């Protein structure tokens, strides 16, 4: 029984009952192009063979309610909310997972169907500890919405008021409240199929079924990478981020504390969704005003630190290339892997710890900023770092884990005190009675005020690579990157394809710029070289690339690979507003690229604030002694061992 079919080619570990196999079959069938006539509620339509009943109904504008279905995930067909009647069939069928292979006549709201859906919703409510007032998902809960849609006016089968499970708050990132779980298994499919981490699974069976971890260990002690993708796809309040807003308010309310916040580009492109804006509208400068109204003493742009990251990471890459190509040093550890996505870093520490030497030692922008705020910034302003509280607005739940890493105290203090998600800041702004959409715009505070477009695009997959390439190419060639790419848009590294491989020839080299003159004599050794880079987003894709690296495939020949833990990059982060879908993420990406275009300075090494920091504070330059102490870090091989 060692034979396996091509279906099993290790691209997912999800069991078939939860896997996209049906979806794959549908995809295959769709390519055949055969059109099947079907009738839904009396409306005729022709759909490609293999289309699901749900999809066909959507094309006709007929709404079928769903719960366990999610656009990003494989089909489970377990909640049974979407059942429909297909003529000639004894039982009702789940519209989400029923592929159309022959002409059928579907009814979506017969008495039987309505009764069944109502029963299913009643049953879900009977098993759910519905503390709606105190729930993080109050007013944007899919279970609430379903109950409203189906006019649930009583708990027909009772309701659960006593808790069965303790709340698991062991993780810095994700809090699990399994009494609110409706067992739709979106989190399971997110973890095992979308992200290929596989921390969550259904345990036990029948009435005792619950979603849990290996041996039901706390989430903080298993191989969870803190990406929070499960939170984004949970329909109820069963999964939420570990929320520090009370502590942040306490700091703001304390007159002795100087509270500063840095905002990352992705939450700025998405937080409007918390206030009713359509996805794809960034409110960066209105948000600055809202944050000041909330009581933050200073508002800084994480993009400054993103530019700094590019300087450090880009120079680190050039140093590794020199070691490999000039010094013939076999320990140069290429390809260099990006390190700004803390979920990805934890993924590598768990699953590929042998590649830790390849991880860039540069900290993420959040952490670089924190270290500078409690050193450079406090020096400049005569502040005691003990009284400075650094908050970071991030699209990310793993950033909460990252700022609590013991490695992240280079300033002598906790570099970043609190990581807030987009959702949490939205809540704080509402609590302060502020409508950010109605506020005037205002700028970021100095001394880090000026940002570049390169920092902005960190928020989307391929963005770090594009920013790094803009800087590296200009440093090495001495020419404007616009000479090689129109408007400095390095289009080949953009897009939502899961894995990308790009080659960029270095046809000519220029003089070594003064900023790095202490590190390099000339660039002759790079002339005629081809820079090979890769991009992957979502850890399932990261796994593909790492397996390829291990096997000596094309990615093992790369010099630099960008990894983002979340699908779409930071804009699809686990701290972003719900819901999420490919269309929502694409809209956010569009907003981010538009913001990049709007900056006059679009390259990190041209950012005057960056040049000033190297001039005044990090005087031994990028990858120099001081920057190593403050801006670089070490990693922890974790492996898969569970205590």
């Amino acid at each position, binding site marked *: *029984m060692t*034979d*396996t*079919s*091509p*279906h*099993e080619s290790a691209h997912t570990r999800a*069991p*078939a*009952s939860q896997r996209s*196999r*049906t979806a794959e*079959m549908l995809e295959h069938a769709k390519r055949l192009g055969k059109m099947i006539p079907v009738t839904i509620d009396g409306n005729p339509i022709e759909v490609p063979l293999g289309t699901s009943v749900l999809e066909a109904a959507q094309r006709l504008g007929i709404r079928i309610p769903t719960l366990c279905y999610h656009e990003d995930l494989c*089909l*489970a*067909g*377990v*909640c*049974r*909310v979407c*059942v429909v009647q297909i003529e000639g069939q004894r*039982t*009702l069928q*789940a519209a989400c*997972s*029923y*592929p159309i*292979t022959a002409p059928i006549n579907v009814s979506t709201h017969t008495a*039987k169907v309505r*009764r*069944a859906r109502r*029963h*299913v919703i009643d*049953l*879900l409510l*009977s*098993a759910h500890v519905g503390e709606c007032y105190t729930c993080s998902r109050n007013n944007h809960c899919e279970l609430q919405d379903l109950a409203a849609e189906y006019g649930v006016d009583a708990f*027909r*089968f*009772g309701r659960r008021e006593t808790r069965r499970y303790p709340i698991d708050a062991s993780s810095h990132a994700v809090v699990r409240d399994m009494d609110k779980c*409706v*067992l739709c*298994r979106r989190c399971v499919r997110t973890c095992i199929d979308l992200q290929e981490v596989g921390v969550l*699974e*259904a345990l*036990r*069976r*029948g*009435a*005792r*079924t619950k979603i849990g971890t290996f041996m039901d260990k706390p989430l903080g002690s298993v191989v969870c990478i803190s990406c929070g993708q499960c939170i984004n796809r949970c329909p109820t309040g069963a999964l939420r981020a570990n929320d520090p807003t009370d502590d942040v308010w306490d700091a703001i309310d304390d007159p002795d504390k100087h509270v500063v916040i840095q905002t990352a580009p992705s939450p700025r492109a998405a937080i409007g969704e918390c206030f009713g804006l359509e996805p794809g509208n960034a409110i960066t400068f209105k948000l600055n005003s809202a944050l000041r109204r909330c009581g933050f003493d200073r508002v800084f742009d994480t993009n400054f630190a993103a530019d700094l990251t590019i300087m450090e990471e880009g120079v680190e890459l050039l140093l590794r290339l020199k070691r490999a190509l000039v010094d013939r040093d076999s320990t140069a550890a290429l390809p260099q892997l990006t390190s700004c996505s803390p979920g990805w870093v934890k993924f590598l520490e768990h699953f590929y710890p042998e590649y830790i030497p390849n991880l860039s030692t540069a900290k993420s922008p959040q952490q670089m900023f924190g270290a500078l705020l409690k050193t450079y910034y406090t020096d400049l302003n005569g502040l005691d770092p003990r009284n400075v509280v650094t908050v970071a607005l991030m699209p990310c739940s793993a950033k909460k884990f990252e700022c609590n890493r013991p490695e992240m105290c280079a300033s002598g203090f906790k570099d970043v005190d609190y990581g807030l998600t987009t959702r949490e800041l939205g809540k704080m702004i509402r609590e302060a009675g502020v409508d950010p959409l109605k506020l005037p715009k205002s700028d970021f505070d100095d001394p880090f005020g000026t940002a570049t477009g390169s920092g902005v695009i960190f928020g989307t997959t391929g963005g770090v690579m594009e920013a790094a390439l803009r800087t590296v190419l200009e440093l090495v060639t001495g020419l404007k990157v616009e000479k090689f790419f129109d408007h400095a848009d390095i289009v080949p590294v953009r897009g939502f394809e899961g894995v990308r491989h790009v080659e960029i020839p270095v046809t000519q080299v220029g003089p070594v710029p003064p900023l790095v003159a202490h590190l390099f004599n000339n660039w002759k050794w790079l002339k005629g070289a081809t820079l090979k880079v890769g991009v992957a987003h979502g850890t399932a894709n990261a796994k593909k690339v790492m397996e390829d690296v291990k096997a000596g495939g094309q990615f093992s020949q790369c010099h630099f690979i960008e990894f983002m833990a979340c699908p779409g990059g930071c804009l699809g982060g686990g701290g972003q507003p719900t819901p999420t879908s490919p269309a929502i993420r694409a809209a956010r990406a569009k907003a981010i690229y538009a913001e990049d275009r709007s900056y006059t300075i679009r390259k990190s090494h041209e950012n005057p604030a960056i040049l000033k920091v190297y001039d005044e504070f990090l005087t031994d330059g990028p990858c120099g002694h001081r920057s190593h102490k403050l801006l670089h870090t070490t990693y922890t091989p974790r492996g898969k061992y569970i205590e």
Partner: protein
Amino acid sequence: MIVSTRTGSLTFAEVAPGKGMDVALARTPADVLRWIDASGLRGRGGAGFPTSLKWELAAKSPGALKYVICNADEGEPGTFKDRVILADFADLVFEGMTIAAYCIAARQGIVYLRAEYTYLRPHLEAVLARRREAHLLGKGIAGRAGFDFDIEIHMGSGSYVCGEETALIESLEGQRGEPRNRPPFPIDTGYLGNPTTVNNVETFAWAACILARGADWFKEYGTAKSTGHKLFSVSGDCQRPGVYEFPLGITIEAFLQEVGGEDAKAVQVGGAAGQCVPRGEFHRALAYEDIPTGGSIIVFGPQRDMLRVAANFLEFFIDESCGQCTPCREGTIKLLEGVKMLQRGQCSMDYLEELCSLGETMQLASKCGLGQTAPNTFLSIVSHFRDEILGRTAAWSPE
């Protein structure tokens, strides 16, 4: 245990092992399929799907790797006839699997053996070893170059739902035993994504007999839609529990006479997933077109409390539901709560009606056969034993 038929011994004891396979291998696979088709053999696990059609679909499904799986996860409460077949007639079962492999061009067979039957494994392995030695398994079976087929045994782990064919396949693949979405069906996307036929132990044994004795011989017994003999496992309030062989179509009345259960007030046909037939319907027949069964017959004597019967089966489903789909996982809990309310005399007629409606939803909307049949017993007891179950008081005691 009584193992009996009207003629005194089981048909399986009379059919010489090896004959069926000789006959099959002398014909083309298509001929063998026609032969099975002519016999009218339907799945002996209870669902009654035509065996020849299942094999034909698997045969036509494209794929170089195909599998024949013997469902020996006999877990239906009150069923124990496969145990007898495996203990006494394993050769016939393996012969049937080999014939199926010949029909669909499978190279690998798997017996998915119920965890509780671990004690049968050494015996089955010995039979397999003997068949390999005799070139009835392995490469070039019976001297036919290119006909390679072997059988291995895979132990179940104690889950009832793994008797459902797609859950069984999940379990075989090393996953949690949970039913898959259907379509696709195992005949095109089964074990490891390959075309797979999953049949009951008894089905394979009958297939071997049909080849040995002919389709006409098989069809002589039973009804037009339910041909042949079938094994039944009889337990409960009767004088002679045991394994019986009867032609399909036998009425419950006649059946009860044979087993000494004439005074029964109800009979549970088909195990927990079956239905509870009251005395007034004992004229009905055990056949696919009337009351289908995988063979489990549980007799309830006059003294049985039918609410206890309902509670017992519901407790079973609450434990054995895989927990995937809402109607089955939560619905069984609500039905049991309802039974307990009835026991205390605290269930209003309105709520009872609501529960029956919920039961219908479970039958219609559950993902797999387990959930779809879980409310059957509750519904039949509520509809047939109204006088007995209504109007109880908290002080009422069944004894």
